[in-house]
């Protein structure tokens, strides 16, 4: 999967809704680091984001299934038994971690009502993917660990017991800006098919073939088109091998669904088409609007919460009294800040978010979004912008909790809007685009 973009510009081109005649119900696939929903305890999760909200959870073996290993008991000669040369077991030192290993662990019980998807990793920092046909190196919270394909199959299928499992993959550096070495690409492709076959065999034994998704790689934009087409054709010709779904890995870009592109040749009996990673709001809504994918993965709500920004752009038509202008006049340097001055509204970033560390929020009693029914804004704005700004300044965890809940709610509202079908998806995207800075 691709890392987050670092440029501040939103992608600009028209939405292509021509490839999918029939819109699927859309779901949001949320990254759950360490096997738990970010920031929300079980009660908050159930109360504000029940399974019926369209939220799916993405768990990764990379961080949810890695455990420390301790020294095993060692046999030492007993001091007083040198003549008989007997040995006894000396208990292992409990503090000494020998290493880390992947192991099965059941998911948290309150996650069971949700539809869960298991992936090997959310992101792999390796510049050089260290992999062979049996295993791949994965960056875990405890350093680089080797994840064997058999281990992954067992941990993912039997341990996490997710509804769907994406087979282990070597992304061959598709996230790299350099053109992948063709040899490496070929090898990775071969490994991925091998690992998919292994997983399918395990799934067949458990009569769980409909739980397997195969990964398909989206070539980067700077790669040669011919190479791309070959790659995509290669992917599609391999077929799903009976997998129930396809998980697209990499960064989405326009044009991947047009022409004779291999993606269009994904068999129709593949029920689930998931884009594992979206890295901006515009990308998210454009992909949702296309109708090709029925699951869109993202980590944006948590990332935005960590960056202390709140998503406030709304797709409804008409002016919003809550949305700031894209530009604002310069603040008077001596201004201490009286009551809320709408002339000094915060600026939107390219994701339609406002930075809650901005001093302009300090005296703002309004909610993040007027009329929003999320945990943060409900009841007429129980947690005001001023309070959230204070929490951000005070470096309090509650700031991230409130921002995450709001951001996730907002994104689920967007999903709901697409699913309702009341508005033309292109209109929704264009409305949002019109409110974002730098969007053409």
């Amino acid at each position: 999967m691709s890392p987050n973009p670092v440029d501040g510009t939103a992608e600009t081109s028209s939405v292509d809704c021509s490839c999918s005649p029939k819109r699927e119900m859309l779901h949001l696939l949320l990254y759950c680091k360490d096997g738990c929903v970010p920031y929300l305890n079980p009660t908050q999760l159930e109360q504000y984001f029940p399974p019926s909200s369209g939220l799916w959870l993405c768990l990764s073996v990379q961080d949810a299934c890695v455990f420390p290993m301790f020294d095993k008991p060692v046999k030492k000669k007993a001091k007083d038994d040198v003549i008989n040369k007997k040995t006894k077991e000396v208990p292992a030192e409990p503090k000494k971690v020998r290493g880390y290993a992947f192991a099965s662990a059941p998911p948290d019980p309150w996650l069971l009502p949700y539809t869960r998807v298991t992936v090997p990793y959310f992101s792999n920092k390796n510049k050089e993917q260290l992999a062979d046909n049996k295993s791949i190196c994965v960056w875990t919270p405890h350093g680089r660990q080797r994840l064997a394909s058999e281990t992954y199959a067992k941990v993912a299928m039997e341990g996490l017991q997710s509804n769907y499992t994406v087979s282990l993959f070597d992304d061959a550096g598709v996230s790299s800006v350099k053109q992948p070495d063709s040899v490496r690409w070929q090898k990775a492709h071969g490994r991925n098919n091998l690992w998919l076959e292994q997983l399918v065999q395990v799934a067949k034994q458990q009569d769980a073939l409909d739980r397997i998704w195969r990964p398909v790689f989206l070539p980067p934009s700077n790669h040669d088109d011919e190479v791309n087409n070959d790659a995509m054709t290669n992917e599609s010709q391999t077929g799903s091998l009976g997998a129930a779904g396809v998980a697209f890995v990499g960064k989405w870009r326009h044009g991947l669904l047009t022409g004779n592109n291999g993606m269009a040749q994904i068999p129709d009996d593949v029920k689930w088409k998931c884009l594992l990673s979206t890295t901006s709001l515009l990308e998210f809504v454009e992909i949702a609007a296309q109708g090709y994918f029925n699951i869109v993965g993202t980590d944006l709500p948590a990332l935005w919460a960590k960056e202390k920004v709140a998503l406030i752009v709304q797709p409804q038509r008409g002016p919003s009294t809550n949305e700031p202008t894209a530009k604002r006049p310069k603040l008077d340097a001596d201004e201490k800040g009286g009551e809320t001055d709408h002339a000094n509204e915060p600026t939107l970033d390219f994701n339609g978010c406002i930075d809650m560390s901005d001093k302009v929020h300090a005296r703002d009693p309004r909610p993040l979004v007027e009329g929003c029914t999320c945990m943060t804004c409900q009841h007429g704005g129980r947690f005001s912008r001023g309070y959230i700004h204070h929490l951000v300044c005070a470096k309090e965890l509650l700031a991230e909790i409130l921002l995450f809940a709001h951001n996730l709610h907002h994104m689920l509202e967007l999903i709901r809007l697409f699913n309702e079908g009341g508005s033309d998806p292109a209109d929704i995207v264009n409305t949002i685009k019109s409110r974002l800075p730098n969007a053409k």
Partner: protein
Amino acid sequence: MKRKATDDAAVATSNTITTATRMSDVPSDGVPSQQQLDGGVSYNNNYDPEPIRPEWLELPPELRSVDFTVDGAAAWDKYEPYNPQRSLPIVPVDTPPTFSSSSSSSSSALCFHINGIDGRARAATIHFPNNGPPVTTPRFMPVGTKGTLKGVLPDEIASMECPIILANTYHLAIQPGTELIDQVFGGLHNFMGGIRRDTDNNDNDNNDNNDNNKRLYNLLTDSGGFQMVSLAALSNVTEKGVVFQSPYSKEHMLLRPEDSIRCQNEIGADVIMQLDDVISSVATNEDRFRIATFRTLRWYDRCVQAHQYPHRQNLFPIVQGHLDTSRGGLRELCLAGFKHRDQHHRRIPGFAIGGLAGGESKDDFWKVVDHACRHLPDDRPRYLMGVGYPLDLVVCTALGVDMYDCVYPTRTARFGVALVDEGQIKLKQHQFAAKNPSSADMTINNNNSNNNNINSNTPIDKDCPCEACRRGVSKERLHSLLKANNPIGVQLVTQHNVTYMMQLVTRMRKSILERSFQQFVQEFLRRYFADDQGSVPTWVRDALQAAGLSWRWTP
């Protein structure tokens, strides 16, 4: 949402105070000149009074006629068991409050009902006229330092049965500023989202007495004095107030009693504290203790003078006096001073016991608490500041304390330490890690032979109603979340610790009402000291003995 405007004089006073605290004429080297400060200033961290005014060491006029040779000269409004001839008025648990300054058990901003006693331990209910929940005692108040209880929502505070929390005036005055909290948001309750509006209306009227606007919890603010002397650089106490260096702007600030009360008025807490002259309990300068004791009385008078809302905010004085519990000693002098003010000026709604939890020996600690409870009125709440260890709570409740506060449960949670009756569970220790997976069969085995006694695959406490324990989150799981620095781990342990403290005080209250507090204490000690009577410290034995309780349990 604005409060009702204060009168012009108060506004003018407020502006004057704000200007006075800015000390904009501080020289470029950052050190205030002698002319800018009153006497008694030192520029190092050790207080070096120079010059000391003789009147600071003299007995205050109101105490000169007190005969301290008489037993209980500094005690007043005592009932049983201290005064067997006077029965304490016991009020049934659900009795509605009355708020009247003429009542013996209430003021216009606080109603104190004693629901039961068992020895010196009391179970009471404190009511505030603010549409908030009643505060039952014994009561522990978790500390929400900067207007939030670390990672806990207001609804969750209420669901943990926590009717009152503490906020720090010092931190809130620095960020975001108490004037902002008041003028823009109408007080800290509103600011924190601690008011639940049952009807989803857009009416911004901040009418706290509206039945539709219920406060989820009450608030108590401290004066900021302790934080200033413990956190701020270049902190020096003068007769005017405390000079300290702002950690943000680096400029010198003077916090006077008037300023502290103004900030607390703006915050709008239900209970506010006087600014007292705080001295470390392990300091040794006797003259300094004497000055601090009398200055605390003078500063209390200034706090009362500056207090704008006595009808809705209760100002508690703080009993100081170092560790001197001798007859006619500093503690008695301070108590006698407050007794005089209570009886001749304005009725004091409640009292705080200060100057402890600063490193003194436990033996001195319990003796000061014992002394204070023997002298303070029985018909008012008694609040012991800065105490939060479960064992301390049990012992001090036996001595007659009603309220406590401490950062300990929430702070220790952030280090992965969970509180239980048996002591602590350090969840980050390796013994709570998931068991070794074997090389072939990579399955976590609940029956792993290692660490069978740790039971790391069980919740912290199966009987605890907190979020983590109720959901069956195992210690293993919490260990992995804490080691991964996942915020959920800290949130869950914080909620557990706060819930544990709430459950502890609830159990104490229940035992007092059922007149089985003795059994509760014995059972608590048995579990806390792992059934080893020899482990019970001497100070615990002595304190419980002084409270008329037996510390021994039946093996």
